[in-house]
């Protein structure tokens, strides 16, 4: 039997796209699926996926765990494990369409859960930490089970296949989100398994990534000191945990996150105003192990917004445009034009220059 992702490394591109409504207007998944079609050749059919924010308003106070399960026994083990610390308010199979382009699907379930107050009190942790620990435990200890999405009122949908087929497979036209991200995968280091497709997500953070980071092991060694477990040897997983660590645990701002992972060169810092220099030097020194080197363009999804960022050398392409309340981000301009033919104010952000888009307060 061939080895699974996480058990083998293959040393050997990708497509990303996103749309967000600043007014919090919810959009079906049709347009974002369409946007991936002109970028078809950037992927090779070994992974595609989407993240959608605002899709579960009826369960918005519960964590939505999306899971790949090898068999029913794995589902039962997961259920039993979760019941120890959480209330499961609803669980169901995620609806799919059987299509020739997507095969060998595992069982795909979603659980809506809420940590028990008694557990939180006795463990002295908050509900987000409780869910994070449960997810890490399932992904490392329960055989045949993998949680690939665990945020509130958001969800990740991913598979092995081309992204446009994956979107159709998951019936994404039936969901309504105020923000969508998408990814087409061309795996360069791993064989490509369902769990390794993008987006990678933890709590409300999700990442789609085009690139090939060279600092993976440095980043992994540092982040694993804080309870994160990198199970798949794929670079996007570590970027997701870095975002969670710096934003949720260290309470950095999005701009500061960008200054850590895509830190300006020392020669660039030297030319900034003194106060800014001091801050940039501090961030580079304190979080030196979280500097991400090598090519990347990423879109970070979070509750109520998106952030796009290129590596500081800008070794991957990314363009941003807007029209009315919507902002579009994609690897190629053609993808934005498919979503909105009259997209305006198109520009390519510089390397290390974060583009942050937020939905207006109270609109999501």
């Amino acid at each position, binding site marked *: 039997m061939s080895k699974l992702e996480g058990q083998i490394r293959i040393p050997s591109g990708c497509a990303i796209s996103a749309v967000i409504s600043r007014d919090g207007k919810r959009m079906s998944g049709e347009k974002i699926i369409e946007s991936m079609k002109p970028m078809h050749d950037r992927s090779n059919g070994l992974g595609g996926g989407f993240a959608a924010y605002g899709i579960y308003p009826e369960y918005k106070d519960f964590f939505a765990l999306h899971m790949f399960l090898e068999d029913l026994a794995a589902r039962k083990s997961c259920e039993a494990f979760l019941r120890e610390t959480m209330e499961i308010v609803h669980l169901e199979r995620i609806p799919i369409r059987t299509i020739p382009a997507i095969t060998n699907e595992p069982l795909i379930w979603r659980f809506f859960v809420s940590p028990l107050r008694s557990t939180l009190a006795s463990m002295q942790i908050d509900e987000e930490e409780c869910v994070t620990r449960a997810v890490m435990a399932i992904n490392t200890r329960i055989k045949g089970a993998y949680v690939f999405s665990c945020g509130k009122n958001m969800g990740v949908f991913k598979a092995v296949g081309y992204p446009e087929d994956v979107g159709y497979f998951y019936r994404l036209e039936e969901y309504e989100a105020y923000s969508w991200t998408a990814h087409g995968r061309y795996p360069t280091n791993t064989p490509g398994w369902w769990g390794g497709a993008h987006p990678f997500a933890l709590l409300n953070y999700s990442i789609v990534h085009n690139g090939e980071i060279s600092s993976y092991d440095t980043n992994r060694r540092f982040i694993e000191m804080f309870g994160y477990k990198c199970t798949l040897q794929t670079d996007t997983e570590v970027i997701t945990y870095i975002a969670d660590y710096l934003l949720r645990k260290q309470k950095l701002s999005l701009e500061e996150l960008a200054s850590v992972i895509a830190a300006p060169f020392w020669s660039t810092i030297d030319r900034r105003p003194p106060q800014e220099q001091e801050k940039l030097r501090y961030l580079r020194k304190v979080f030196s192990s979280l500097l991400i080197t090598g090519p990347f363009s990423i879109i970070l999804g979070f509750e109520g917004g998106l952030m796009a960022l290129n590596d500081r050398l800008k070794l991957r392409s990314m363009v941003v445009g807007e029209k009315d309340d919507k902002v579009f981000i994609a690897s190629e301009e053609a993808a934005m034009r498919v979503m909105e033919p009259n997209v305006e104010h198109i520009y*390519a952000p510089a390397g290390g220059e974060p583009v942050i888009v937020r939905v207006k307060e109270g609109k999501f």
Partner: protein
Amino acid sequence: MTNIDASGLDYRQLNAAIRDCAGDAAVTGCTGQRFIGAGLEQGRLTLSGTPGNALGAYLNGASIEVRGNAQDAVGDTMNAGRIVVHGSIGDAAGYAMRGGELYVQGDAGYRAGIHMKAYGDKLPVMVIGGKAGSFLGEYQAGGVIVVLGLTESTRPIVSNFPCTGMHGGKLFLRSDCKNILLPKQVIARPASHKDLDGIWTYLHTFCELFGGNCDELVQQPFTLITPNSSNPYKQLYVTN
């Protein structure tokens, strides 16, 4: 002139259709198809929509005009011909270009004109009407790059690390370059009338294509950057 509707065609079908009409075509509805006009030796292509990456790669004599923006790697390793873009272009335009002309009305992304070279009667020319991203002309070995800085933005005419590893050719920036940090192995000096005479044809063509007036263009100072042969390029990333 043949009309080709590119919508629904993938890059192979579109390029086959272009070859069938010997390169004389007006293509509408481009949606990211790659390699349009690659290696084309003759004809005139007019494109609308958004052509995909590697537009006019290895171009060998044909002429391509884009009514809008182009994506990454325009004119990659181009040998002869002309590409005109009525908009902006993405990263790595004119990579290793060794002949022909590339005129861009708007901005260029990162790494424009890197590894550009010249030989014998081959002299590649790239004129960027707007501003250029970082690593402009990195490892330039020949040819002429001109950046005019005509677009409105707070960005400098060229971003970080221009001309790193430059060892041939000429680079003109329409700026006094006071805020531009250049590497040690190049010499920058104000361009003289004689220097500007050398690029007058290109400026003239630019104005013909996109409007404007050459005499007004040269009212602003130009800086000419060339390699410093007494301080040759030795290293970039490591001392060894």
